[in-house]
């Protein structure tokens, strides 16, 4: 062992003095075993830690590092590449508003402005009651443009009025825009045969830019 190698290893937090929530620890250990090389588990494990802690705080990174036996620097170098990792304090509810081309063509910018007004923060901000709002690149749901992802669930097409309802639903703890949940939308051929209506889903009114 060279001296440098020892120093490098010294930066790995020791499990003995890094308390890790039991379920997070178990999850990380399981995940590492799924791959030929444990490092493949870095991104899923960081995401699990982020879900536990609300953001990738230094403590969250140390916990993953301690269980995976990797340096925090390596983990942060990976995390900083990806859009979904929050290296600063974030909220407990998340709105990603798509502002990419297809959504822009259908009026996403106006919906984003209204969301900023309703949440009470600018793009990238967190409201006092913990709603994190940011614009996002194409989320892969241009059929419901303009759309947003609320805690990972896609809703659309959004009108400016929907932006208000969306934030109200979040604050009331209700399902967000129940009639515009992508999960209830049939494929296009079926939906449009029925004039934009389907069971539990309705875009027959609104949705125009």
């Amino acid at each position: 062992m060279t001296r440098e190698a020892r120093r490098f290893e010294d930066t790995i937090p020791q499990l003995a003095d890094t308390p890790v929530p039991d379920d997070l620890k178990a999850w990380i250990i399981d995940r590492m075993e799924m791959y030929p090389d444990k490092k493949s588990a870095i991104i899923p494990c960081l995401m699990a830690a982020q879900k536990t802690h609300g953001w990738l705080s230094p403590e969250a990174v140390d916990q993953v590092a301690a269980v995976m036996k990797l340096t925090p620097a390596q983990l942060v170098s990976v995390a900083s590449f990806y859009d979904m990792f929050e290296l600063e304090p974030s909220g407990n509810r998340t709105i990603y508003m798509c502002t990419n081309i297809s959504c822009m063509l259908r009026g996403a910018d106006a919906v984003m402005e209204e969301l900023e007004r309703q949440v009470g923060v600018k793009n990238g901000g967190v409201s006092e009651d913990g709603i994190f709002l940011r614009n996002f690149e194409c989320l892969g749901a241009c059929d419901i443009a303009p759309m947003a992802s609320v805690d990972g669930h896609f809703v659309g097409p959004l009108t400016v009025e929907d932006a208000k309802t969306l934030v109200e639903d979040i604050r009331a703890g209700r399902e967000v825009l129940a009639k515009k949940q992508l999960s209830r939308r049939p494929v296009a051929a079926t939906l449009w045969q029925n004039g934009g209506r389907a069971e539990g889903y309705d875009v027959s009114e609104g949705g125009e830019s």
Partner: protein
Amino acid sequence: MSYSDELLFDNIDEPNLKSIEVYEQRGGYDELKRVLRELPPETVLNELQASGLRGRGGAGFAMGTKAGFLPKGDMDKYLCCNADESEPGTFKDRELMQKNPHQLIEGMIIASFAAGINKAFIYIRGEYEDQADVLEAAAKEAYDKGYLGENILGSGFGVSLVVHRGAGAYICGEETALLDSLEGKRGNPRLKPPFPANAGLFQGPTLINNVETLSNVAHITKMGGAKYAEIGTEKSTGTKLVSISGCVQKPGNYEIELGTPSRELLFDLAGGPLPGREFKAWFPGGSSSPVLTPAEFDLPYDFDSIAAAGSMLGSGAIIMIDDSVSMVDVALRTAKFYKHESCGKCTPCREGTSWTVKMLQRVEDGLATPMDLDIIESVCDQIMGNCLCVLGDAMAMPVSSMVKKFRPEFEAHIEAARLKRTPLDEATLADELNLAEMATSA
């Protein structure tokens, strides 16, 4: 000539098709059983090659040929299903995974069998949380039924499957960046060669295919490669899921026979332009494809016809732009996306996308001259073909096509915006000119 029977979208909205019970009731996994019982791997590979199936992710490379590149012999080989669907305008894989995950898994098992693969992964973009949940549940069902794991159905063949979630990076849809990301690194593309077939994931032989491509596999072995090749055109076989979005009345995913006239897709299926508007331009294959104009509406929608018109079919994502939209806005938004998503590894892409955005912003703000348009085109020219991957090209191609095809609109915008300049803009411009003068005189 449109193909009336749906393959991938057959009964797609049947309630709970995503569960293994319903999928099996509809004959799901019967084909896997037959293949493992009756066919040697070489025959399956031959069927895939005979089908002419071309990759549905964007490049359009022959899937069977690609699978045939993997070396033979006893070693760990990998299949990576590319479910990082991030190309703006593309949303077909999302629908397939959410509604019919077992079609994909069955296709992956058969493809693995054909190419002698023992470890499979689905790399799904992190934003698709609901869809990843569906896939994970489906994979578990398939394990419980013995369709995944070791010694599948007593055949002696085995393959494992892991659903791996990304965390938000367009570049991870590039196949070598996907591999790095799957190895737990930043998603930087690799230098090719070596190609993934020889040295891919963990430096082992790796086959990488798109969700839609793999979802076709069980259909191909079932109907026979030659029969599948009868659908579509000679060089673009099969059906294609087309994601139509933007300024149309009926956006969504449609399954069409390749070679269907584009006009039919845009007007009959997607319902044409919004009331009172007219189409002005369209992206035929995602936001990285050079834009086409209404003059090209009669092109057959297949790989070669769209390529011959100077664009590409890409992932099959059509984005329609109408006469209410400024092409400057479209170009700027497109360029901003690629600037944001450039991984920064290659200089032409990192700097080229960044400067293109700055120049288009000047056009937007009325601080540009028509000469800036020439510079934009020249920057785009110098990005293309000069990087490890095609992300930079993906910005350069559409942006330069917009500037070329809509140059009068860009020039009119520059002039109109110039007349609206504020004193603050004038001060900015004066500063810039001073700086430029200082630079030249120094």
